[in-house]
């Protein structure tokens, strides 16, 4: 009997062991549970990580490149101009030459007073029943040319003309430099075309102050056609 009891105990133990052992290996499988904490994935799924983008130092104030709010007619003209300029386009032109979406142009003081101030103009440029049409260049280009030409309180028309590839006569006397942030105005912009009001047709290859299709003046300065550039949103600088 003394031998039988331990033997039975062993047999019973083994039997129980056989039934319970298989369950144990299953438990280690539960370590899958800790995987559940994969919940931290959620924050990854949320678009929030995109929001902190403005804090990224490499693109702090980069404005969105856009051709603005063009009506049906201007959109059609723009599409035709893009097709003619392909693979160039108004958007490519903006991205390359107007990355800050700021445009500028110059006017002699007298016409500025006569056609902008005295008429209390709403928009800059030549207006007809379809809109007001204005040629404009990158602010950085105009600004650099102006700074180069100014010494003391006056500017040198010859230096300004040379910097912008235009005759000095265009810059003699007091001037006004206008600047418009297209991101703020939302003005429609496109490549200028031959039919635009004010287009000065080139008469020879040597002409440097006339219109050539493609987004650059004959003097090589990038230019855009701005439709309805609001006077109220432009900054005006006097240049003596």
């Amino acid at each position, binding site marked *: 009997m003394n031998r039988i009891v331990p033997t039975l105990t062993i047999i019973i133990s083994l039997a129980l062991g056989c039934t319970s052992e298989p369950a144990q290996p299953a438990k280690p499988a539960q370590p899958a549970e800790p995987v559940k904490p994969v919940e931290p994935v959620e924050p990854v799924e949320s678009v929030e990580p995109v929001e902190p983008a403005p804090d990224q130092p490499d693109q702090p104030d980069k404005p969105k490149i856009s051709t603005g709010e063009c009506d049906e007619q201007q959109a059609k003209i723009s599409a035709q101009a893009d097709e003619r300029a392909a693979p160039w386009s108004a958007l490519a032109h903006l991205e390359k030459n107007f990355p800050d979406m700021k445009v*500028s*142009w*110059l*006017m*002699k003081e*007298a*016409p500025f007073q*006569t*056609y902008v101030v005295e*008429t209390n103009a709403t928009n800059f*440029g*030549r*207006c*007809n029943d379809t809109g*007001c049409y204005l*040629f*404009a*260049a990158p602010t950085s280009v*105009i600004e650099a040319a102006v700074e180069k030409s100014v010494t003391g309180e006056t500017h040198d028309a010859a230096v300004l003309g040379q910097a*912008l590839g*235009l005759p000095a*006569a*265009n*810059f003699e006397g007091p001037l006004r430099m206008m600047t418009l942030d297209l991101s703020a105005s939302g003005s429609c912009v496109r490549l*200028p075309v031959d039919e635009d*009001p*004010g*287009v*000065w*047709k080139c*008469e020879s290859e040597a002409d440097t*102050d006339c*219109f050539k299709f493609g987004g650059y*003046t004959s003097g090589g*300065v990038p*230019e855009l056609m701005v439709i309805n550039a609001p006077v109220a949103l432009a900054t005006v600088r006097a240049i003596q």
Partner: protein
Amino acid sequence: MTEEVVYQSPLMYRILRDDAGLVIEVVVGGIAMSTVRVRLSAEQALAYERDGSGFSDQLANAIMASPRSYQ
């Protein structure tokens, strides 16, 4: 010499009258704008008196397109 503005167009030109007759002043240029003044011939003045801005718009556009021809 006295000068009177006869007509001012949103296309950025004016018709002026002085002691000698009619003059058209046109804003020319693209990214740098200035003005050109051209005295109207007797025939052009007559055409303006007859057709008004229909004539002056055409003349102004012609001057904008080729300012040197009128200087």
